[in-house]
């Protein structure tokens, strides 16, 4: 095991991981993708998607292949399908999978962090309180804040 299971301090799931963490970064601006990639390097394997639609496709594919994403970082403002919609779709897919018992017992739901700009906290708070996402961070991304959040929730040591 790469790291032992840790009970989370906040409301994150307990994680028992034997392989590398699967991370999905959903961001349409390449420079910001790069930044996020840099922050999360070494904590898992990183995939990227440029918009909500691509993200949902990748997410569902991973679910179907029995190797779902552990962590998703998703910008709210994106073309084609925005973050909020994508979030809804992802959670819907998870529910479907678990109902059909296609989700292994030890795999909990993905930890999804929304990335928002300071001007639009209302949107994020809504998503957060409705229990769909696990947290949010604001742009410009503070790497320490992000890592602290992940640490607090037992995703990284």
């Amino acid at each position, binding site marked *: 095991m790469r790291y032992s299971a840790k009970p989370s301090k906040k409301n994150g799931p307990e994680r028992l991981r034997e392989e590398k963490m699967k991370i999905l970064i959903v961001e349409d*601006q*390449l*420079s*910001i993708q790069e*930044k996020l990639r*840099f922050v999360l390097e070494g904590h898992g394997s990183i995939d990227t998607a440029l918009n909500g639609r691509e993200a949902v496709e990748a997410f569902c594919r991973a679910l179907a292949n029995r190797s779902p994403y552990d962590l998703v970082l998703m910008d709210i403002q994106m*073309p084609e399908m925005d973050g909020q919609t994508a979030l809804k779709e992802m959670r819907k897919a998870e529910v479907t999978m678990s109902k059909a018992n296609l989700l292994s017992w030890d795999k909990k739901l993905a930890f999804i962090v929304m990335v928002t*700009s300071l*001007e639009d906290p209302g949107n994020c708070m809504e998503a957060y309180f409705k229990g769909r996402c696990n947290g949010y961070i604001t742009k410009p991304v503070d790497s320490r804040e992000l890592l602290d959040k992940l640490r607090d929730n037992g995703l990284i040591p």
Partner: protein
Amino acid sequence: MTDGAHRKRILIVDDIPGNIKVLMEILGDGYDISIATSGSTALQIVAKKVPDMILLDIIMPDMDGFELYAKLRTMASLRDVPVIFITAQSEPENETHGLALGAVDFIARPINPAVILARVKTHLALKDAQREALQAAHAKSQYLAYMSHEIRSPLNGILGLVGLLAKRKSQDPKSLQFLELIEQSGQHLLAVVNDILDHSKIEANKVSLENIPFNLRELLAKTLDLFSLSAKEKRIKLGWRCTDAVPAIIFGDPNRLRQVLYNLVANAIKFTKKGRVDLEVGMAGCCEESLTVQFAVRDTGIGIPPDVLNVLFQPFAQADASIARTFGGTGLGLSICASLVRLMGGEIQVESRPGEGSCFSFTATFSRSFVPAEPALANLATPTAAILGDCRILVVDDIETNRVFLGELLATLGIRQVELACDGQEALARLHEQAFDLVLMDCHMPVLNGLEVTRTLRGQEAAGGKGARTPVIALTASITETDRARCFAAGMDDFLAKPVDAQILLQVLHRWLRVTPGPSAVEPTPDLAIRPDLAPESAAGSPLDETAFDAESRIMGKERMDRLVRAFFQDLERNMVALRMAVAAQDAHKIFEVAHALKGCCGAVYATGMTRHCEEMQQVGKTGALGRATPLLEQLEVEHALLRKTLEKKRT
């Protein structure tokens, strides 16, 4: 100030040496004794050194004890010195007289040593205790004022930001409701803190009244206006009356007067369930120099019980829980009113009948003519300080903290007529209503920013055809070449870098206020108004925040930073293309989206100048003020080319 630690000094005044000898035998060991055998000698001694206590024989030739006592009481330095009269037993009327005059005690002959020792000791101890108590109270007042100040500053910040948040259109109703509640709590807290601050300032006699001209009737109307909504909700009739005898313009402190009236009217409304609240103003007396005005706030409310009436104007009378429950508030409001009224040369009183209503009335004295400015202003070493007082300035800034700060700053510079506007719309309305000598305009405001307001104003001025031109000074956190050009193009006359420096502000005011008759075409010399040290990104004209960029390069490593910059170039091109198309298509929503995305990218490489302009473009998209889109886009084209060059250089 003397402390109580020294050996106490007692002055004995008696014309009979034998008596003095007796007292010296009793008191000589414990105290330092001075002797005077006549009133005149006594006066000479106290003039040189103040004793801690005086023992005074009543029967003396030339000047008897009472006469001497009266003289002693006129000396300020002896005000707090206890005086004990020494009398013969057969003169009870002397004792009464002495005590009535203000002596603290008397001792009858023949003198009982134990008694006199005890009496002297007690009175000296009392004096010490009193001084300590006063010192403690003073220290507590100062501490309270300091803490209140510490609390007030961040609280203002919180309220300012809450106000901003509430203005943002993206808030959902629940959030808005929460924000409103937060704001109410914050305002209440601020009111409490302000009351405490005010109260302690007044106690410490640190409050002085202004002496400026104001329109009393206007003040009455405006003050009552504040209550029109709450009165309407309670279905209470609200009105004011002012007799014709009261002149239109009087000189005094309108803010403090308003404070008192506000407090009284607020209370009246609070404790009235139905009926009316009236503000009645009339003349109570006048002379050549000044006039006394009578104010009365009458209500048909629940009234005040007689036992409460007595303590109403004392601070913290509501320490009594039952009163607090009825009255609420900080317990300081009426006490502050009483102090302020006293400062204004009047007295406050209340009449009330439970179940019928109350009437709070007070008098205040005002001047008829202008009294010269406070000496503090002279320190500014500027001959036109008095003239500055006549000027009228409009401050436009969407952040309350900034507005308040500028208002205070202007006041210290001698500007008494300052109007505050919180956004471009309000600014335009005010400018339409009245003439201003100068406008301090924040550039970056939501909805309608400073440049747009200025452009509109210039347009109106030109249309008016009167040739009037109000100087507009830009307030901005960044003064780059491009910013300056834009401000000039919009019609602004000069700039001030934030945070605003008092000396520089004064210079700007002198340059632009018509302190000599007739308009003059003044050339702005922005070098004085600009503080390049405060605009780091314009230091070398670089579009990047070089320091931050270099720091990040070190953290990420050259290779990764390189990858980041290459990714950024791709984003830059892609977004600029999209932005050009969106502007051409006048698609506000798309403009918003692209500008927002571009802003994020620019932030990632610390391109601060461009980030700001993206923000402006974002606003354009959000508000639909598409007139700005093309000029802004031109701006961005220039900047993006420069940014590219700079970043390329960094890569090599």
